[in-house]
């Protein structure tokens, strides 16, 4: 986790003023997320004596792990200056197609293939609209958000489709006492964090998001980068959809309903700039934990949902104000 933080590039357009190490650390938005996370843990422990149990926290994280994994890739899409609100619907549709295929008698490996291909195709469709036809991604993906979910309901109807017993329970698979979805989340975060911070491809993503025209003049194939990101997001959404199917033991059209908001919330809480060019995987990584800690703490304390929603809303507003403040300071 620390390795991720220190190797990430800071994108500033002006020449950097000389700052000492701790000053640099303080003005990173991830620092704010980290501080909020610490406050969240302390607050939740004070709210309920049942909260501070590492196994419980890990188990609770598995309920959001699928969405958190998608949020990591979404962070890269947002940094590249685009957005994809259809990822949660993609999870539902690819899971429904997978379940439908295996129920229709297709062997499991093929059915899984169907689900993954469907996810890839949905990402491809978004890319075609946004990159090919130059349509604004927010409009396109609001459209596909509704369309993919609608198709899922057409396929699955109002019923749920069972999956085979051996496929059920990814969240009960433990490696060194840690649930598999959490391990996957950490591994994917490390890989994506390294790609974004330590490769040329990663730097190009930041440049495309900061100023696409300039990036293109500098010889960066911005279209190819964006298409790649949409396809990756589609594929990862499908994987997340299958993970959800395994956790629930059945598939229904309303899997991850409203998940797109949680994904965007995680990216924003982690300090990713909604207009692109800034942000980090570490930020989203921390924000996912923050969100789980805060909502789990309130749930185990039996707080009313109304209070929980209010707290989450305030958290987001605080995060956005702080991020804006930090970025405007950093640019001076």
């Amino acid at each position: 986790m620390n390795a991720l933080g220190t190797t990430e590039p800071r994108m500033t357009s002006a020449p950097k003023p000389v700052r000492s190490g701790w000053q640099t650390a303080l003005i990173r938005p991830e620092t704010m997320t980290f501080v909020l996370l610490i406050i969240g843990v302390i607050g939740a422990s004070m709210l309920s004596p049942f909260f501070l149990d590492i196994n419980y926290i890990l188990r609770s994280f598995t309920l959001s792990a699928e969405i958190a994994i998608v949020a990591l890739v979404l962070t890269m899409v947002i940094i590249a200056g685009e957005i994809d609100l259809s990822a949660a619907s993609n999870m539902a549709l690819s899971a429904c197609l997978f379940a439908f295929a295996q129920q229709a008698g297709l062997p499991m490996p093929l059915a899984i293939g169907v689900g993954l291909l469907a996810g890839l195709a949905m990402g491809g469709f978004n890319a075609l609209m946004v990159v090919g036809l130059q349509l604004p991604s927010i409009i396109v993906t609001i459209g596909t958000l509704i369309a993919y979910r609608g198709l899922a309901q057409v396929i699955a109807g109002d019923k749920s489709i069972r999956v085979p017993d051996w496929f059920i329970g990814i969240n009960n698979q433990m490696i060194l006492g840690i649930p598999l979805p959490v391990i996957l989340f950490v591994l994917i975060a490390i890989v994506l964090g390294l790609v974004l911070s330590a490769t040329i491809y990663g730097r190009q993503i930041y440049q495309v998001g900061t100023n696409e025209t300039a990036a293109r003049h500098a010889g960066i194939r911005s279209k190819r980068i964006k298409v790649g990101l949409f396809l990756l997001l589609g594929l990862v959404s499908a994987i997340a959809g299958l993970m959800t199917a395994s956790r629930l033991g059945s598939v229904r059209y309303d899997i991850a309903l409203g998940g797109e908001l949680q994904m965007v919330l995680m990216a924003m809480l982690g300090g990713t700039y909604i207009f692109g060019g800034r942000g980090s995987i570490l930020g989203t990584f921390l924000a996912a934990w923050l969100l789980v800690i805060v909502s789990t703490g309130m749930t185990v304390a039996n707080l009313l949902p109304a209070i929980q929603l209010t707290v989450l809303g305030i958290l987001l507003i605080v995060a956005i104000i702080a991020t804006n403040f930090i970025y405007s300071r950093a640019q001076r």
Partner: protein
Amino acid sequence: MKNKIILAMAATFALGSTAAMAQDPTQIVYIGKNTGNPYFDSISGGFEDACAALNCEYQFVAPATAEATSQIPLIEAQIQRGVEVIAIAPNSPDALNQVLDSAKAQGILVLTVNGDLVGNESHRDATILPVDFTKTGPNQVELMGSMIGYKGEIAILSATTEAPDQNTWIAAMNDTLANDAKYKDMKLVATVYGDDQPEKSTTEMEALLANYPDLVGVIAPTTVGIAAAAQVVQSRGIADKVHVTGLGLPSEMRDFVKDGTVSAFQLWSPYNEGWLAVHFATGVLDGSIKNEVGATFEVPNLGTIKIDDLNAMNTQAELTTFDVNNIDEFDF
């Protein structure tokens, strides 16, 4: 090192909570479908009074929305809190299977109250239903028929498309209309879903009136739906043309009955469900009641309760019909 500290802390907390549990009174929690649903206040009242009488500790929790997976974090939280009894009105017949299994594995008594896991009964210990739900559909069709002279177009305004109890009743209504010659002149033209939200239910009711000008009756087997439907009929002044009935709360429907908007509707006593659940749960825990099919036990105010097939119990034999003559006798 850090992990060790956390684990040690977790262990301390876990030990602490077990030790505390041994002296505490039985902890019972009821998880409702969603918040802001007055029906559950009434069930909760039964739990509360019974717990006051039998010296147990009771809490009511519910998610903000009634979607299939929204109760999962709440169940996880109750397991973590170490409650002895989880009673739940399930939002889905199968999405909760895995998490309810882990509750049972912890030795928690799992009861479904006011709705069951149809087809997945092995994932709970027993169910408490107000009446024999197979009679609800036919009873409602008969009441509707008597209001419209057994003739004309009718529609159903339901809750969510997934709600197991609603779907059981709707299936039975369809079955009764199709197979009983008495109802051959009644035609079901639409089944719509208001998601148990007042606004959506109102919109769906308006749409029914617009789409089916010949509509003479609406059955809303949900307390939110019938109140919304009655409101629409009242404000349009069309009570002589469109007859509304269904399952409603006397407290919410009193004004509509008194001004003639709704001539009759049905329900059971939700209060008694909570009352029975607590008596059953404490009896099973202290060994005085055997949770076996065919066993009987006495409950104050309810008389002898018998455990039927699939470990199901009913608080009353038939639905109660409320009209202008008796509505003042009920205050839930």
